[in-house]
């Protein structure tokens, strides 16, 4: 892991990995969405509304994966003082928040014809809305901390602690449909079992892979940007001192 502690080495890899992930992810996700819109048969009950599944479910997974990335990176930052971990955590926040917002919006559009309402305050929907608010709080906190001091300082540690504490919500989102009676349906896919017909399942998995590649590409792009920011600032500070 510490092989990547050297930002120069990380940047060399990120330079070609980032466009590769973004382009292949865009092609896969767009292909899966078009296939979902044009080819997939309508569902027995939902009809054509089922097509929103191919964007709603991957964004839900990535919204949760984003915070998991923040939490794991924050632990690595606090325990091993890994210089890139703090950068990775901050880079995952905005794409994670965007996917969470997409999930909430598409879910609401799906719910209107399916359930007969745009929004209900059940366990799953409420805990997912809390996830969006956590993201917004995290972004605000990390920007305030960045203004105060460079990574590794006390202010950066507060951001990391918030990232770890906020992870409590992730298992709650996952279990919300099991612990509490909720309007949202329970998980369709779990541990190698799926109650989604193959006609929907394969395009869904393909779409999820595509969106995951896009997510990874955006995180790498943002890490490069944050590293460039730190470099510029350090250079300006040296100039001001000279």
């Amino acid at each position, binding site marked *: 892991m510490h092989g990547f502690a050297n930002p120069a080495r990380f940047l060399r890899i990120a330079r070609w990995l980032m466009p590769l992930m973004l382009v292949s992810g865009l092609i896969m996700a767009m292909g899966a969405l078009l296939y979902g819109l044009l080819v997939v048969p309508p569902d027995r009950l*939902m009809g054509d509304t089922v097509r929103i599944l191919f964007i709603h479910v991957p964004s839900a997974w990535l919204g949760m994966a984003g915070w998991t990335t923040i939490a794991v990176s924050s632990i690595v930052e606090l*325990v091993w003082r890994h210089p890139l971990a703090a950068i990775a955590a901050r880079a995952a926040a905005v794409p994670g928040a965007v996917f969470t917002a997409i999930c909430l919006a598409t879910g609401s559009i799906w719910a209107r014809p399916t359930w*007969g309402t745009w929004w209900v*305050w059940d366990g799953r929907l409420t805990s997912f809305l809390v996830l969006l608010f956590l993201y917004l709080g995290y972004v605000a906190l990390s920007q305030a901390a960045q203004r105060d001091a460079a990574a590794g300082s006390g202010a950066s540690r507060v951001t990391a602690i918030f990232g770890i504490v906020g992870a*409590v919500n992730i298992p709650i989102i996952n*279990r919300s449909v099991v612990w*509490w*009676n909720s*309007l949202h349906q*329970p998980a369709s896919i779990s541990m190698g079992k799926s109650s989604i017909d193959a006609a929907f399942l394969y395009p869904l998995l393909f779409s999820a892979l595509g969106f995951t590649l896009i997510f990874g590409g955006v995180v790498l792009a943002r890490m490069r940007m944050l590293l460039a920011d730190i470099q510029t600032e350090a250079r300006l500070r040296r100039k001001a001192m000279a």
Partner: protein
Amino acid sequence: MSVVKPKHQRLVLLLFAVSALIGAGLLAAYALRNQAAYFYVPSDLVAKPPEPGRAVRLGGMVQKGSIKTRGDGVTIDFLVGDGKVDVPVRFRGITPELFVEGSGVVAEGRMEGTTFVADNLLAKHDEKYVPREMKDMSKAQAAAVVAETK
């Protein structure tokens, strides 16, 4: 005297903090298990009936063959069950598209005597996603169709 590396000290501290957090989260979720439920199932409603007139939600399966439309054409009666008890429900208005017999429903309303009077119906979708062409087929038939089209 043993020397603990600061790295390991931080790791142990963090593990303690994370397990305390998870414990707190689980306890909170456990304490919320009744309050955070979105609806009552029929057996809850029969075992611990809420005071009449209080707004509650009732969730369950619409029993097969139980939907009956009254003479006025907009009022329907049906039974909502959970496999143990059935509660009669009355509703006046437009039902959601997914409101069908044998499917899940959440009704918002109140108890009036032994009948649940609903102001609003929400259809509950289950976790199964099946194409329209296959819904009337048995599993084996559907598998045969899938194999044919591959």
